[in-house]
C-alpha cells in the first residue's frame, strides 16, 4: 500500500480540531510584543508632551513620511517641559514603512509605535495623521479613532520596541531603565533581554491571552556605577 498511503494523510486531517488558520475578524492571532504599528506621541506623567520638535524623526525617516515643525513654548502655558515643542506633527501612513527608525532617533521617547495595524482610509488626505490624532489621551492610551479596529487590551503596549533595546546598543545596559515615565503608566519596566535565564525564555513574548503574562516586568535595578561616573 506504499503508493496509496498518501491518500490516508488528508483523510486523517479531516475533522481535527487543531488549526493553523485564525478566523481573523472574529479572533486575532497573537501579536508580537515589538510589532510596529501606527505611532503615538507620548506625554510625561504630568501630562506635558514629550515631543520637542527637533525633527530628528523626520530627518531619519527613510520614507520621508514625517513632517514636523517646532515652535517656542508659550511661557505662560508650556506644552512641553523644554524650550521648544512639536507645533506641527504629521505622519503619512501611505508612505510609512513602520521601520521604527523614528522611535530610535527620538531623544525624548516622544514617538513610539502601538500594535495597531487595522486602519484604512477612503481618501489620501485621511491617511495623514495629525498631531491631534497621534497624541495619547489623558490616560496615556492611544486614541481609538473611528476608522481603527481596537480590541480590549490592545492599547497597552505602546512603547515595547523602545524598551526592548538597550541604550546606545550596549549590552551593559540591558534590562536597565533608561527612559522617562509615561502618562498613565509611570516608568515602565524593561523587557526581559537576551540574558534572561532559561526558564523565562520558553514563554512566547506575544500579546494575547497568554502573551501579557509572558511579558513579565523584570525587577528594576539601579543604574551601574559606570553610567553615573560617565556623566
Amino acid at each position, binding site marked *: 500500500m506504499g503508493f496509496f498511503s*498518501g*491518500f490516508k*494523510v*488528508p*483523510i486523517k*486531517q*479531516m*475533522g*481535527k480540531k*487543531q*488549526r*493553523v*488558520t485564525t*478566523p481573523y*475578524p472574529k479572533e486575532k492571532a497573537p501579536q508580537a510584543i515589538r510589532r510596529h504599528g501606527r505611532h503615538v506621541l507620548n506625554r510625561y506623567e504630568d501630562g506635558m508632551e514629550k515631543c520637542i520638535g527637533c525633527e530628528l524623526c523626520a530627518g531619519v525617516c527613510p520614507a520621508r513620511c514625517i513632517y514636523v515643525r517646532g515652535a517656542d513654548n508659550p511661557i505662560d502655558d508650556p506644552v512641553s517641559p523644554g524650550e521648544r515643542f512639536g507645533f506641527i506633527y504629521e505622519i503619512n501612513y501611505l508612505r510609512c514603512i513602520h521601520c521604527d527608525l523614528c522611535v530610535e532617533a527620538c531623544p525624548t521617547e516622544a514617538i513610539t509605535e502601538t500594535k495597531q495595524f487595522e486602519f484604512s482610509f477612503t481618501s489620501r488626505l485621511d491617511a495623514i495623521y495629525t498631531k491631534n490624532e497621534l497624541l495619547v489621551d489623558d490616560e496615556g492610551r492611544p486614541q481609538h479613532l473611528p476608522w481603527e479596529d481596537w480590541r480590549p487590551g490592545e492599547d497597552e503596549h505602546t512603547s515595547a520596541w523602545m524598551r526592548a533595546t538597550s541604550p546606545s546598543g550596549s549590552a551593559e545596559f540591558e534590562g536597565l531603565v533608561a527612559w522617562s515615565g509615561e502618562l498613565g503608566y509611570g516608568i515602565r519596566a524593561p523587557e526581559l533581554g537576551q540574558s534572561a535565564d532559561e526558564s523565562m525564555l520558553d514563554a512566547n513574548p506575544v500579546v494575547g491571552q497568554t502573551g501579557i503574562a509572558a511579558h513579565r516586568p523584570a525587577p528594576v535595578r539601579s543604574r551601574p556605577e559606570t553610567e553615573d561616573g560617565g556623566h
Partner: protein
Amino acid sequence: MGGDPLLIGPVDLSVFLIVVGKVLIAFVLLLILTMLMIWFERKLVSGMHNRIGPSLAGPFGILQSLADGIKFFFKEDIIPDRAQRAVFILAPFLSFVPAFLLFLIVPLGGNFNGNVNGIITVFGHDTYLQVADPPIGILFALAMSSIAVYGVMLAGWSSGSKYPLLGSVRASAQMVSYEAAMGLAVVAVVLKSGTLSTHGIAEFQSGAGFAGIVPNWNVILTGVVPFVIFVIASTAELNRPPFDLVEAEQELVGGFNTEYSSIRFALFFLAEFMNVITMSAIFVTLFLGGPSGPAFLGTSLGWLTGIIWFALKTSVFLFMFVWIRAALPRLRYDQLMDLGWKVLIPLALGWLLLLGAIDVGRDANWNPVAVVVISVAVLLGGYGLLRAAIAGGRSRRLQEVDG
C-alpha cells in the same frame, strides 16, 4: 431528441410544458448543485489541509459561492485590445453550454426494478426522469466533452496573450489524448450493455445480479479495469488535479483563462465544476447502475428511491475528486502524456479486445478458460512489443543526442 417517448406521439401543449419543465428543473438543479459543489470542495479540501475554509457567508459558509457569484457580476469586464473579440466572447459559452448539455442525458432517477422501466407518469404522460434520451446516448456525452475542448482552445488563442495560449495548447493536447482512453473505456460498457442510450445502459444494470447480492453493475461485468481507466481519463479530461496542468498556477499565471475577468471568468469556473458533477453522474450511469440500488433493499419509495441512490452514488465520486485533489501532487507534462498514450490507451484497447474475445468465445461455445488464456497471452505479447518499441525509440533518441 427523438429518443424521448414524449416526442414520439402527437405533441400537444402539456407535452411541451413537461419538456420545458424538465429542462428548467435540470438547469436550476445543476446550477444549485454546482454552487454547492464549489462550497463542498472548498470546505472539504480545507478540512483535509487542516484549514477552516469558507465560514462567514451563511451557516458553515454555504452561501460562499453565491457571494462570489454576485461579486463576479459587479467586477469590471475586460476584453484585451489584442483579443479576437468575437471568439473571446464566444469561448466561455463553448465551455459552459456543453457542460450543461452533458447533464441532460443522465437518468437521474426512476424505478428500474420490476417492469416499470424507469417510467414515471406526469399528467397522464409517460416520461423518464431525464431530460432527453437520444439514441446516440453516450456518444453525445463524448461529443460534448470534445466541444468543450474548443472552449478552452479558443479562449486561450483569442486572448492575444502568450500565457493563455500556452495553457490552452496544453489543455487541448491533454483533453484530446485522454479522450481516446475514455472512449475505449466507454466502448467496453457499450459492448456489455448492447445499447448506446444512457437510459438503456441504466436499465441493463438494474435488477438482481449474481446471487441476488452482487449488483448487476457494469463495473463488475466489464472487470474493474475500464472503470478505473474511465475515472483516470475523465479526471484528466476535466483538468482536475493531479492533471490540472492547464491551470498550473505556478507555471502559467492562470492558465487558458488568464485574460478573462468578471462573469466571463465565472462561466469557465462554473463549467469546470458543472463538469465535475456531470462526470460523476456519468460514472454512476455507465458503471454503477445509475439510479438502481441493491435489489434486495426493495424500492418502497417508488421513483424517489432511484433519485436517492443516484445522489448517494454521485456524491461518493464528488468526494473522491476532492480527496484526489488534496492527496496527489500535479503530474509533469511528460508523465501526463506517457500515462495517457503508453499506459491508459493500450490497456483500454487490450481490455476491450479481451472482453470481445470472451463474448465471441461464449457465442461460439469455445472453452472459456482457453479463450482467456490465449487472449491474455496475446495481450502480453502485445505489451512486450509495445515495451520494446518504446525502449527502442528511447535508445535511438539517446543515440541521436550523443552522436
